[in-house]
């Protein structure tokens, strides 16, 4: 792999940037792999990368029906934070946060991780009690967090209407300074490049249409380019996970919903942090390009259409205008939808399945982007050892039958 550096940039400038190495290969699929990852999004590519890097398994294929990072990796609002309530999920997201902090160096690829802080606003007394509880929990878990009052929030975000005369006045917020945003495409591309350079085959435009089993164990996958063998298969297909599970012969407690986001025209810098509000239900940040990145809730019905409904977008924009009346005349540029696989307890499923050798990493619902490196890291461990990583153990899919749920509806809060 050609390493990227400032010096390299200068060197290539001398040859008019015509000799850059291809970022990854486009290999023909082999007949058999040690591990197959189904789904070439951020989580799948991260899984392949860490499998090759940390576990020495390099005979891996990532099979993607479209193009790399073209699903939810390209459709989210790039927020990264780890201030969840329960120990199990806080540990999971904090594991991810720590990987984020060194990711650009590790991948030799600038993922533009910007720790600009994340505010979760409180608008009612109960909001504030919940925020205090969550921040206290976070501190006990070793995760940074502060409770801010109205004035402190106003100082951080001068453009926001923090006056007492609004319908939902800002009473305060939780503040995680280490939270922030990252460049979503770069995350997928960085992991893809890293995995490819370690020998992983990234196979695009190839759809997995079924799973081949023998005596209850997986022996490979049927694809649009024929059968590919592997004794171990990890499925990381986000919104399509329920459909994939059905093909493998079991059910998952997932429902797929459209979640939409929108970006405005580029503006001069006005918002240098991430503002989220569960109560008025919306969140906004400003990208490095200058556009406001806005999102809110899922559509209430099951859908695979990769577009959101008009009532939801109207509700989203109402929430943002409530917080930032100054944005009321900003024009919106683009709007899109992604399909999120929501779990009944708003926590993911990182688990073995009834089929031996087949593992699923899904159910990240509305907030999977922040977990990309951590999810890949512990799923790689799980695939390599054939049993759940200690951090993944609480997220087994049989928790819905045992009743040991991890209810993160509060901290998962507004869909993002």
């Amino acid at each position, binding site marked *: 792999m050609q390493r990227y550096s400032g010096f390299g940039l200068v060197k290539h400038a001398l040859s008019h940037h015509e000799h850059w190495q291809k970022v990854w290969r486009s290999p023909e699929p082999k007949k058999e792999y040690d591990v197959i990852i189904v789904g070439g999004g951020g989580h799948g590519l991260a899984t392949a990368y860490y499998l090759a890097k940390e576990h020495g398994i390099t005979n891996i294929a990532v099979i993607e029906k479209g193009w790399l990072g073209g699903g939810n990796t390209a459709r989210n609002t790039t927020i990264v934070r780890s201030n969840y309530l329960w120990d199990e999920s806080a540990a999971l997201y904090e594991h991810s946060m720590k990987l984020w902090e060194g990711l650009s160096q590790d991948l030799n690829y600038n993922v533009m991780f910007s720790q600009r802080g994340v505010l979760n606003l409180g608008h009612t007394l109960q909001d504030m009690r919940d925020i205090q509880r969550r921040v206290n929990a976070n501190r006990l878990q070793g995760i940074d967090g502060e409770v801010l009052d109205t004035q402190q929030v106003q100082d951080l975000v001068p453009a926001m209407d923090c006056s007492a005369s609004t319908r939902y006045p800002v009473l305060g917020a939780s503040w995680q300074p280490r939270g922030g945003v990252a460049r979503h495409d770069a995350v997928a591309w960085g992991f893809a490049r890293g995995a490819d350079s370690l020998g992983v085959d990234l196979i695009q435009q190839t759809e997995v249409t079924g799973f081949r089993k023998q005596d209850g164990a997986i022996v490979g996958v049927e694809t649009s380019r024929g059968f590919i063998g592997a004794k171990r298969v990890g499925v990381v297909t986000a919104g*399509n996970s*329920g*459909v994939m599970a059905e093909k493998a012969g079991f*059910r*998952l*407690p*997932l*429902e*797929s919903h459209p979640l939409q986001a929108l970006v405005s025209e580029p503006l001069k810098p006005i918002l240098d942090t991430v503002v989220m509000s569960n109560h008025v239900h919306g969140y906004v940040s400003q990208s490095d390009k200058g556009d406001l990145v806005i999102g809110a809730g899922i*559509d*209430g*019905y*099951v*859908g*695979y*259409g990769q577009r959101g*409904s*008009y*009532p939801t977008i109207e509700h989203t924009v109402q929430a943002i205008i409530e917080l930032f009346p100054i944005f009321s005349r900003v024009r919106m540029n683009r709007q899109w939808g992604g399909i999120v696989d929501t779990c*009944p307890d708003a926590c993911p499923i990182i688990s073995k399945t009834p089929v031996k050798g087949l593992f699923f990493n899904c159910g990240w619902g509305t907030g999977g982007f922040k977990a990309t490196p951590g999810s890949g890291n512990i799923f790689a461990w799980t695939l390599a050892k054939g049993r759940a990583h200690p951090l993944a153990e609480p997220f087994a899919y049989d928790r*819905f*039958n*045992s*009743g040991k749920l991890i209810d993160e509806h509060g901290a998962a809060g507004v869909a993002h």
Partner: protein
Amino acid sequence: MMHIFCPYCGELREEEEFHAKGQAHIERPIEPEACSDAEWGDYLFFRNNPRGIHHELWIHAVGCRKYFNITRHTVTYEILETYRMGEQPGITAETLAAEQLAQSAAASAASSTTQQTGDARP
């Protein structure tokens, strides 16, 4: 914007008047205490999540406030029918597949007839 026909109001109304309430036709086990953990978990948490025909429970929240059912396609979002509580769907994935099969059979029969008449022409 979906337009939904409320079977009680007898009118097409805008999506905003309604709330989706998840999968339809879920029956609570008659004796919950007699359920195994697996059966009870399945009843509480496991739902159909098809890419295609789905039967759903909706409520006409700001209209007549009654629950009813919708058969809807989850990719095109096309609403195929709405029907009252207690009724069974007239359209299912199976009936639709059978209908498509019959249609394609009829189409291929029709095309072979045209071909025959075409051959018969001088």
